[in-house]
């Protein structure tokens, strides 16, 4: 951890922390230019100078959380909690999805949107369900993403939901030029929405289409806002940054199941601690036939598909 950090810069830097580091100096030097670039207005100096989440001290994080909560309260007109629940010791999350049971009803997609405060317009959805023909097997080139029959499952078809695979060797983390995305000790790959520059290299690198960009200002009705949030998870996002599935970090770090697993009417979604030999996820890995999507890319996902029948 770097000890030097830019102060709030609202004129109050009496802390006597010694000479201002070069970071402060250079950052302040470019501040004016960038302010103009960003169209100013909404961007506070505090927000502009905020450093990468992983370099922040505890008290700095607290200040930021308060600032965000204030900002969200003003925007949505109700209190929002922004948490930073830490990863649990001895926990690495894993997910398994039963392809023989999923019927493609998209309950997970919409539960995820509600839980994770995804933009309604322009629409962002972290889960994509593909309808494929049984005869052709898992081949995305013939997948139908926009199926909408009266009822599912349709004769002769199977359904394959895809979301972030929380790769152990994550291409998105590797390619990010500014270290705005990383893998947490519990195996969740997260994004610092206040550090991402929106270059979208991670989107090009992700083999699962799991990363989504806020092309416009995200629209989220206050009535539908989930006020229980996590800094690295479902807090409302700004325009121009990338976001992704976090295994519902705000829920799972408190012991709850992810929203998609909880809503699934067929019980196709299994979640748990890969380090716990008695967990559901370990049972699946040991007793069912499991396959990895795009295994050849060697991304080592912690999201597995299995055939439960």
């Amino acid at each position, binding site marked *: 951890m770097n000890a030097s950090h830019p102060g709030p810069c609202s004129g109050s830097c009496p802390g006597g922390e010694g000479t201002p580091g070069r970071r402060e100096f250079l950052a302040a030097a470019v501040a004016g230019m960038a302010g103009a670039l960003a169209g100013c207005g909404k961007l506070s100096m505090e927000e502009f100078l905020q450093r990468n989440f992983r370099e922040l001290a505890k008290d700095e994080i607290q200040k930021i959380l308060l600032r965000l909560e204030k900002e969200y309260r003003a925007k949505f007109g109700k209190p929002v909690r922004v948490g930073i629940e830490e990863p649990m010791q001895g926990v690495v999350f894993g997910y398994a999805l039963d392809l023989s049971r999923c019927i493609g*009803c998209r309950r997970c997609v919409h539960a995820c949107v509600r839980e994770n405060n995804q933009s309604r317009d*322009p629409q962002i959805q972290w889960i994509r369900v593909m309808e494929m023909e049984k005869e052709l097997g898992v081949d995305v080139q013939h997948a139908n*993403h926009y199926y909408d*029959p009266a*009822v599912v499952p349709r004769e002769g078809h199977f359904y394959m939901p895809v979301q972030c695979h929380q790769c152990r060797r994550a291409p998105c983390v590797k390619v990010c030029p500014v270290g705005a995305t990383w893998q947490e000790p519990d195996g969740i790959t997260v994004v610092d929405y206040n550090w991402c520059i929106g270059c979208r290299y991670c989107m090009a690198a992700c083999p699962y289409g799991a990363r989504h960009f806020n092309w416009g200002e995200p629209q989220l009705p206050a009535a539908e806002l989930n006020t229980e949030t996590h800094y690295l998870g479902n807090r409302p996002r700004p325009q121009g940054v990338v976001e992704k599935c976090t295994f519902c970090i705000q829920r799972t770090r408190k012991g709850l*199941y992810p929203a998609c697993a909880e809503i699934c009417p067929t019980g196709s979604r299994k979640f748990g601690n890969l380090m716990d030999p008695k967990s*559901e996820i370990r049972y699946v890995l040991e007793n069912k036939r499991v396959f990895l999507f795009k295994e050849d890319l060697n991304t080592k996902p912690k999201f597995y598909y299995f055939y439960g029948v």
Partner: protein
Amino acid sequence: MPLRTPAIACAPRRGRRLAFLLGALLFLPARAQHGVKEKAEHPAPQAPEIQVPAPPFSEGVFPCSSCHDGKTMKPDPKRRELGMHTEIELKHGPESRWCLDCHDLADRDSLRLASGERIPFTSSYMLCGQCHGDKFRDWRVGIHGKRTGRWNGEKQYLLCVHCHNPHGPRFKPLKPMPPPVPPEKIRPSKGGRP
């Protein structure tokens, strides 16, 4: 000569029974968490006590003994076409299957295992598990079917019959929720930023 058993079973109080039952089945997953938890009264020695929500009875049908009291209606073990419960179409297992394979003749508020042992409706999974042993095994560890609660703590189970109508167990198709907006239709909202 085996009897044909197209329509069979308990005592109807009202019409639109099947529709109701199906409706209950469809929406149960969401409501189940709020359901009353009942303890299995007769846990089998090999099955640990598993907490489940109330079985998804059609409204007003239980207890069955309010009609099948053994007095006004004498138990009749003979296999036959019933005049009652005609809305139930049994589509489960071989043709030889009929009501009293699972419902207890003497105590209609209970189910019966092949061994003759009586079990309450809240332990119906044991009845299902007689034939579907592999599913039962998976269900107990939380792999078959849905389990809610905490991944690192207490979990809530659903009974087999919460998702599978025992008289026609095939999982019922659902109306899918809306498909995503295709990229061509994601456009800037008029007037730009709010």
